[in-house]
Every structure is written in structure tokens, then in C-alpha cells.
């Protein structure tokens, strides 16, 4: 039972981190109609910035600030230089150009930092376990859940309660209307893109402390975030949250249950490897099933 609760918490933790990625992607798609494959690169940029600053200053907080700033800056720069030329293009051009950006970012970061993974230490204040009723759980992972939920609340507040949220939602509905409202669309788009980038960078830095920081870390997360968006419905923040939790739980619980089940029929180490990979497959089966049932995702419209 304690194990189950722990695994559910792990699932929620990986789910909220996925949500940080998926929220940015879904906002960018919802507002600008852009599919951004390079979102995983911004995740990587955040992680590398955090690792570099942490090793220079020893401060995790400064590392997080650096991750947010570097990813937001990289996002804004890329938006101004490249992305803004793609809004009016078809999805094929967007895929190609952002694929090109992945190549540039990945190999560029490899050029600067080399191919070896960097490590980002969990801050002392958050290391070690915490007692949660009957179970002990990692303090840091619990903090990740908290941060993720705070960001989710912040995003709901931003999109539902603020002036800029009104503009964002108007932009989703009708670009001409928002122009008629006298909003500077160019600046709004740059802001939304940089916001999405900052969220991705934050996720990269936070996850970087429990995994390693290396080139290519962003793309598997990016693809999972796509799955999240497809499940939740493109453009819906709520859908992104529900989808992210579903995917996180499927991955984590499948990763525990499948090796256990497989160990009945094969030896333990093979069962571990096969089960973990099959849990990943389970995510895509979940996606295919939801799509078959609702081609526009759980909260998609149109």
C-alpha cells in the first residue's frame, strides 16, 4: 500500500513536470497556431543554464532563476528571428524549421558543453525524505509537485483573470478581433512564446536535478508532451493538466506493474528492461485509445 502511494506520487510528480512542457506547447499552438518541435530544446537550455550556474555559484535558487531567464531569452530570440516568419506558413514548414532549430540547439550545446552529461545537485534544504503519514517520500519530488501545481494555478489565473489572459483567449478565437482591440499582436506572441519557453526551461532545470543534464534530453519529453496535448485537446490548459497526469501515472505505474508481472515469466533483469519499455508503449496505447474515442482529445473543440 505504501509502495502504491509512493508510486502514485511519483506519477503525479512526473505528470506535473510534463504539464510544464505541455502547457507552453498548447498555449503556443492555441494562440499562434504553431507546432514547435524545438520546445524540447528550450527544456534542455533551461537544464544546462541551471547546471552551469549551480556549479559556478552553488546556489540552486540562482540556478532556477538562470534556467527561467535563459530559456525565456532563448525563446524570445528564436521567436523574433525565426518563429514569427512561420505563423502564416503551413504546418510542414513549421515542422521543418523547428526541426532545424533542434539540430542547431542540440549540436550547439554539445559544442559548448561537450557530450558528457552534467549533474545538478538537489539543494540541501530539499534533500532527504519527508514523512507523509505512513510513508516516507522524497522531499524534493514533493517540492516538484508543489511547484507544478502552483504554476498550474498561476496559468489558470493568468488566462482566466488577467487582461493579458483575455488577450490570449481572444487571440485563440480570432486574430482579427484582437488586432481590432488595439493589442500589439507581435508583442503578445513574443510574450506567449517566451512564457512557454520559460516553463519548459523551468521543467528542464527541476527534472535535471533528478536525472542527468545532457544533449537530447528534451526530445523524449517533447514527444510525451505532444501525447499529453493530443490526449487533452490542443489549446486547452485544463486538458494539458489532465493529460499530463494521465500520462505520468500510466508511465510510472506501468513501469512498476509491468516488470512485476513480467518477472513471473522471465528473469528479473530482463523483466525490468522489458517492462519499463513496455510501460512507455502503454502511454501510446492510451493515446490511441482516447483518440479512437475522441479524435479531438478530451477537452478539444471544433
Amino acid at each position, binding site marked *: 500500500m505504501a509502495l502504491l502511494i509512493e508510486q502514485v506520487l511519483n506519477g503525479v510528480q512526473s505528470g506535473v513536470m510534463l504539464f510544464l512542457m505541455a502547457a507552453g506547447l498548447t498555449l503556443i499552438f492555441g494562440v499562434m497556431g504553431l507546432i514547435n518541435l524545438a520546445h524540447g530544446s528550450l527544456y534542455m537550455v533551461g537544464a544546462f543554464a541551471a547546471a552551469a550556474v549551480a556549479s559556478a555559484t552553488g546556489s540552486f535558487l540562482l540556478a532556477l532563476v538562470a534556467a527561467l531567464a535563459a530559456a525565456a531569452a532563448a525563446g524570445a530570440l528564436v521567436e523574433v528571428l525565426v518563429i514569427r516568419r512561420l505563423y502564416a506558413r503551413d504546418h510542414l514548414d513549421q515542422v521543418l524549421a523547428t526541426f532545424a532549430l533542434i539540430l542547431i540547439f542540440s549540436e550547439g550545446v554539445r559544442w559548448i558543453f561537450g557530450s558528457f552529461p552534467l549533474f545538478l545537485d538537489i539543494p540541501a534544504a530539499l534533500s532527504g525524505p519527508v514523512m507523509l503519514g505512513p510513508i516516507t517520500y522524497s522531499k524534493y519530488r514533493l517540492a516538484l509537485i508543489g511547484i507544478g501545481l502552483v504554476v498550474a494555478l498561476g496559468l489558470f489565473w493568468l488566462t482566466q483573470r488577467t487582461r493579458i489572459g483575455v488577450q490570449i483567449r481572444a487571440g485563440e478565437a480570432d486574430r482579427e478581433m484582437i488586432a481590432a482591440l488595439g493589442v500589439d499582436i507581435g508583442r503578445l506572441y513574443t510574450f506567449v512564446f517566451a512564457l512557454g519557453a520559460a516553463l519548459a526551461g523551468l521543467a528542464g532545470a527541476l527534472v535535471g536535478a533528478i536525472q542527468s543534464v545532457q544533449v537530447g534530453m528534451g526530445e523524449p519529453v517533447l*514527444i510525451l508532451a505532444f501525447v499529453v496535448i493530443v490526449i487533452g485537446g*490542443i489549446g486547452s490548459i485544463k486538458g494539458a493538466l489532465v493529460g499530463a497526469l494521465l500520462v505520468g501515472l500510466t508511465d510510472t505505474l506501468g513501469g512498476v506493474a509491468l516488470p512485476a508481472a513480467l518477472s513471473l515469466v522471465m528473469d528479473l533483469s530482463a523483466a525490468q*528492461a522489458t517492462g519499463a519499455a513496455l510501460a512507455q508503449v502503454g502511454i501510446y496505447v492510451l493515446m*490511441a485509445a482516447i483518440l479512437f474515442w475522441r479524435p479531438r482529445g478530451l477537452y478539444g473543440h471544433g
Partner: protein
Amino acid sequence: MAERWINAGLLAGLGLVALWAWAAGAPFTVTLATKVAILALAAAGLNLALGIGGLVSLGHAVFFGIGGYAMGVLASHAQAYDPIFTRPFVFEGTKSMPFIWLAAIAVGALAAWVIGRISLRTSGVYFIMITLAFGQMFYYLAISWPAYGGEDGLSIYVRNGFPGLDTLDPIQFFGICFAILLIVLWCMARIAASPFGLALNAARQAPTRVMASGIDPDRLRLWAFVVSGAVTGLAGALYADLNRFVSPTMFSWQVSGELIVLIILGGVGRLCGPVAGAALFVVLEQWLGGLSEYWQVFLGLLLLAVVLAGRGGIVGLLARVPSRG
């Protein structure tokens, strides 16, 4: 320049480079030409779905990989003298290329049918994301399959055979791949010029017109996707035979992205776009890769320039005709 002369020139050039390298005793260059032919074949498969049908599949690595594994599974069982299954009947592996090709085409088509049935329920950006996700699913399936090497993949000690030829001789293996490429391109030209091709091309531009003409565009797209998957599957089997090795990386999303890049560099929807794109890609990989370990930065910049400057690719540039929109 007329596109048919460019096509003839491209294909003749590829054949002549291989022959010249063979005569000059440069087997590595022959192997590179073989790689061009195989990548061109894979991209030619995608070109039917993407170039004519407008289906931006970011998961064609599935078919490339599945063709590779069709080869790997059949050949590894044959080299171990171990039947693949014995009930309800004995099914032996094989080291014979024609049978391997048939198997690769069949599994490629079958996978494309299943994935197409699900993915084509959606369109646009959903389709892109879903095909990408299916690619990742097959990647993890391949990793999770310890009987066939899991993450490490499968090695084949001796290249598979073709009756009457020595496939270990680079120029003979090039000849096989080149001949298949020519046959498939000829088939693609016929398909593009057929009523089916006409309707598929129209379905990309004007699906409502196609429906009002009494044709279901989704059926066209599904068949295009199936043929496309079969061709890319065949290319995967050849690619695995070229390397005598198959691993889950053949399923990776980078492969899917690179196949699209080949088509874009060469020219979308153009018969020999994939050939020009594959040739350019392999040349860049060798040349830039020789200059810098980080050559993909430059590939990225080039790709960005091609996309932002407008499409049409090499063949479009040579033909100086307006690019497709």
C-alpha cells in the same frame, strides 16, 4: 530545364558515380552511393504520402525500422537455424533477399494500414503529433523485445543473398538497390499520373471538391499511406542489409525528421526530389562531417534557410518553376 531531363541527369549521375568509384577502386564511395539510393527509396515512399497526399507524417521511421526488423528477424533465425515459430506450421527464417523484401513490404503496408486507420481520423497538427507518437511507440517496442537484441539491436554476419549475384561485392549490391529505386520511381510516376494520383493530389488541395466528385478523400489518403509505408519498409530492409545491422535507432524520431528533410531539400512532391535530397544529405554529411564534428548545426542552418526562403528544393531550383505552396 525540363524536370524529366533533371531526373534523368540525377539518376544517371548517381549510377555513374558508383561505377566510377568502383572502377577507381573506391568501395567506400560505392557504399555511399548505395546509401543515397536506399535513403532516396525511403523518402520516395514518404513523398507519395507527404508530397502528393499532403500528409505530414513525422513517423515514417516506423516503416523504415519495421522493414529493417523484418530483415533482422528473418535473417537472424536463418543464421541460427532456428525456426521463427513451429505451430501451426513451421516458419523458417530466410537469407534470401527477395523473400525478405516481400516480408518488409507486407509488414510495412500492414503497419501503415493500422497507423493510418487511427491517425487519419485526425488531420493537421494532430496528425503530425500522432504519427510522431507512433514512431516513439515502435521505438520502445523494439527496445522492449529482448529476443531480438532489445536496445543493442541485431547483427547479421553475412549479407543476405540474391540469386546469381554476389551481394557482398559493393557494386553488385549497389546495382540491386539502384534497380529497385528505378523500378519504384517508375511506379511512383505511374501512380502520380493515374486517376488515383490525380485524386490524391486534388485531395491535398481541395478535399471538398474531391468529396463533391463522389470520392472519399480519407480512403485515398489511407491507400497512399499504405503504399508509402510499404515502400519505406522495403528501403528499411535494404538499409539494414547495407549495414548488416538493425537497432531501435532506425525507429527514432530523428530518422522520421531526416526523411522529411530529404524531401524538402530535394523538392516536395517532385518525382526525383528524394534522390536529389538524399544525395545532398549524404554529401553534406561526408563533407561537413569531415570539417566539423558538429556539422548538424550547419545542416540546421541550411534547412532553415531553405524553409524560410520558400520551398522547391534542388529540383525546383533547377527547373526554375514556381514552388508548390
